[in-house]
């Protein structure tokens, strides 16, 4: 984005794609698919002390059709996996997926018959936030990385 200060009233010259990217980056509507322990850290991150609202991601949407970011928070077992996939399929483009916590990244230390070994086996994942559970700072870092990714990708209009 280029800001040019001319004579009289100022104007901003930019490409449409960059403007869209900038807008998308700061208005993330998150669908928290909360299943387990990481949900506690999600609550901490979302509430006053760490405040995800600073990044324009403060308002969770519990309807997949209104959400841009699917935040998969907590262990995904084989029983819940089809539902997760269904929620993902219901979301409108553009959409991003964040794997929140070790279980969603790799299965974590639940290396057993019940747990999906990483949600990237069923969904495309954009950002991985490791940690069991990740600290709120790590979550915010992941969120900023997602914003960077959104900003730099090709914007489908």
């Amino acid at each position, binding site marked *: 984005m280029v800001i040019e200060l001319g004579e009289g009233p100022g104007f901003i010259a930019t490409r449409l794609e960059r403007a869209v990217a900038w807008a998308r980056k700061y208005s993330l509507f998150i669908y928290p*698919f*909360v*299943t*387990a*322990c990481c*949900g*506690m*850290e999600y*609550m*901490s991150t979302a*509430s*006053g*002390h760490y405040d995800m609202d600073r990044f324009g991601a403060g308002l*969770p949407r*519990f309807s997949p059709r209104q959400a841009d970011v699917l935040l998969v928070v*907590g*262990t995904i*077992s084989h*029983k*819940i996996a089809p*539902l*997760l996939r269904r*929620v993902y399929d219901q979301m409108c483009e553009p959409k991003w997926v964040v794997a929140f916590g070790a279980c969603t990244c790799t299965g974590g*230390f*639940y290396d*057993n*018959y*019940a*747990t999906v070994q990483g949600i990237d086996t069923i969904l495309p994942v954009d950002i991985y936030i490791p940690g*069991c*559970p990740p*600290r709120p700072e790590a979550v915010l870092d992941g969120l900023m990385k997602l914003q960077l990714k959104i900003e730099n990708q090709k914007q489908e209009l």
Partner: protein
Amino acid sequence: MSPSDASRETNNMLLNVGPSHPAMHGVIRLLTELEGETVIKVEAEIGYLHRAFEKSCENSSWTQAVPYTDRLNYVSPLINNFGYCAAVEKLLGIEITERGKYIRVILSEISRITDHLTCIAASAMELGAMTAFLYLMKAREYLYEIIEEVTGARLTTSYGRIGGVKGDFPEGLAKRLETELAKTEKEISEVDKLLTRNRIFVDRTRNVGVLTKENALHYSITGPMARAAGIYYDVRKAFPYFAYDRIDFEVPLGERGDNYDRYLVRMEEMRQSIRIIRQALKDIPEGPVNVYSESKTMKSFELADEAKLGRTEGLVNAISEVEPTLGGTERPFHDRIMPKDKRAVLPGKGDTYGNIEGLMNHFKLIMNGHGIRVPPGDTYFAVEGANGELGFYVASDGSDRPYRVRVRPPCFFAMAGLHTMLEGYMVADIVATFGSINMIAGELDR
């Protein structure tokens, strides 16, 4: 039947609530049958967060099972840690040190407060009280910081050890804890002002989701839910463990067993927990936190005499003090012989690096295929979890791995009796009632 009659014919509607629903704490699916807006039948389907807790424990050593217990009730992980460790200690026949007991009491109560804060926060938010949610989350953050300072982790602490705790309190914790408790108390009283006499909140919760005393007994529901229904049962009072028998606290009781009573009981329990922490901080003795360096100490001749008389009860844990007149006892690292206590707790680093016995002891406990060996047998030990009686049934076949670790999760029984609290009320009351139950999927499905 005329066509107009046929068009007036009504069917009950089946509505699926969950498993991914904003008002479902965690993942559970409620199959509800509705007549108009009245709920006439509810069935709960569970198992969406089954993570094979038992199987994982069977495949790990006794100590390695501790992190799995963190993630049972992830809102109050410390209580789970201590519950599991206490069950194994019971099987081993270990009595932990006084300081260890008080540390466990203090941290259990902090955990209980965080659990109740979360429960009230979430259920109030679902009824529209976003402010209360933010205030209580702020209070929880104060306590998480204390927990982090002591255990090194905010949530998944793994702080309990078989035979004690991971480490002692850091310097000056008591003062900081007192500051944080005062701040927490302030938030709680703030929320008390916001909710307790709030017309909307009272209307949504009073006489809604009533759990009768009989039903609470029938479904063996314990904890705040049973106490709200008027059942005086608290494991801390009924079967005192750790140091609870020396601490003065009250068990709040409700009368009607509705959502509002459950809310009040939880609020009062938080105040009682703060009271317990204050007393424990005052009474906490100095000394070691692990059973390793302090256990029942006896003179060696007394030990031998007792044994000769056949009074071997409890001798297995006793430390025999060797007479200084005997040869070989003046070596600095061998002032005392601790024959049995080496079973569970790692020796001090001075011993590990300083002498061969300490080194062997360390490796025997650490190495795969060695580790803590619990004598064959089984036992049940219950602690008062934040949601009720949290019991651990541990069985050992004498090897270094648990034969079985079965958990009695308090939520499971509440889910069995859930339909009695929802049927006959409105659809909108499902949210209010379900929030007040504090279902935790981690311990429900394990």
